[in-house]
């Protein structure tokens, strides 16, 4: 118990082609579980996870988007409020890797300029079906000056590390605020806020 307060709220966003495992990555992080059945995300969903970094309780509200083209007008409207964006591809799906540049363009177009970006090559447990070498992922990440991890939601590889690293990067450039100075409304589009509880 006693996980009832938080000092900061970070809004993260997961994007990438349909079927690369965005929802599974999030599900592994939030619930430490994995499900093999593929259910396409309808539009936009989110999960909450509170982590502790540098002595601060940070509530992560992580938005999970549908990768399917037909939902793009809905999902792109959620880019604006994100402080961190995870761009996910599937190392066994070359097309999902080729589309990274398209997703990066989407970020440029719809997200805040100072948004923290991160590239994830998911499904790294399936090395026998790999078509995207790790080096290619590292290279494109380097070119765009963003962090890169190969992850596996199924085998629980680098998932927590990726989220915590992204949160740390955001925390690093977050101006230090007096905690408990503002109200938090996680349903609105605000940025970093302190927490003055209605409850705890």
């Amino acid at each position, binding site marked *: *118990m*006693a*996980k*009832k*307060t938080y000092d900061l709220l970070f809004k993260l966003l997961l994007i990438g082609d349909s079927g690369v495992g965005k929802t599974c990555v999030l599900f592994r992080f939030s619930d430490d579980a994995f499900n093999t059945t593929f259910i396409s995300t*309808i*539009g*936009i*969903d*989110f999960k*909450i996870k509170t982590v502790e970094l540098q002595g601060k309780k940070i509530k992560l*509200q992580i938005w999970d988007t549908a990768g399917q083209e037909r939902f793009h*007008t*809905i999902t792109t409207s959620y880019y604006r409020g994100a402080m961190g964006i995870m761009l996910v591809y599937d190392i066994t799906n070359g097309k999902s890797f080729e589309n990274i540049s398209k997703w990066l363009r989407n970020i440029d177009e719809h997200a805040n300029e100072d948004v923290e970006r991160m590239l994830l090559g998911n499904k790294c447990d399936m090395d026998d079906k790999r078509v995207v070498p790790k080096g290619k992922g590292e290279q494109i990440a380097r070119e765009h000056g963003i962090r890169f991890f190969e992850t596996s939601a199924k085998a629980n590889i680098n998932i927590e590390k990726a989220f915590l690293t992204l949160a740390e990067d955001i925390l690093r450039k977050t101006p230090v605020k007096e905690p*408990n100075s503002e109200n938090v409304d*996680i*349903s609105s589009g605000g940025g970093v806020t302190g927490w*003055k*509880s*209605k*409850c*705890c």
Partner: protein
Amino acid sequence: MEEPPLREEEEEEDRDEGGPEGALGKSPSQLTAEDVYDISYMMGRELMALGSDPRVTQLQFKIVRILEMLEALVNEGSLEAEELRMERDSLRKEVQALRTGDPPASGEVNLGPDKMVVDLTDPNRPRFTLQELRDVLQERNKLKAQLLVVQEELQCYKSGLIPPREDPGGRREKGALVDRTSNASSNKEEKTIIKKLFFFRSGKQT
């Protein structure tokens, strides 16, 4: 319209009768090349019976020429008839198809490049607009966020962090203080969570 089958039947009958005479009794439009040959054979025999008079020979020459012309006309006519019959049959099929499968066929014709056909009998057909989906998702996510807040709040009450009649303004700090001290009383409080929530609400409103 029913001529072709009839003609075929008659042809068969003619042959059964071994009919040069039958050929002459036919309607001109039903005449075939076979009939013309039958007639030629018959006339040749009759001319031969007339003997070798030079006038007969002259007549024979003209008759042969006329029969050749008739043969050419009959061949041409039957070819034309065959073509027309094929065209008629294909047109019939087309009419049939248009009558039975009319709606989708004409629908496709009217479609622009960015249009989609929706099967109105499909129970799983698209029905809702993007805006409707957007609204529903927004509401869902708002409610989910509220639920999480309520769940968190509930946890606080369950753990006894917040005394039931706590003043809402200073709850956090006091809650933290009473965290350890109120553990002993948390068991009995456990039973009246709902009650406490109502107390909290009424306290908030006053």
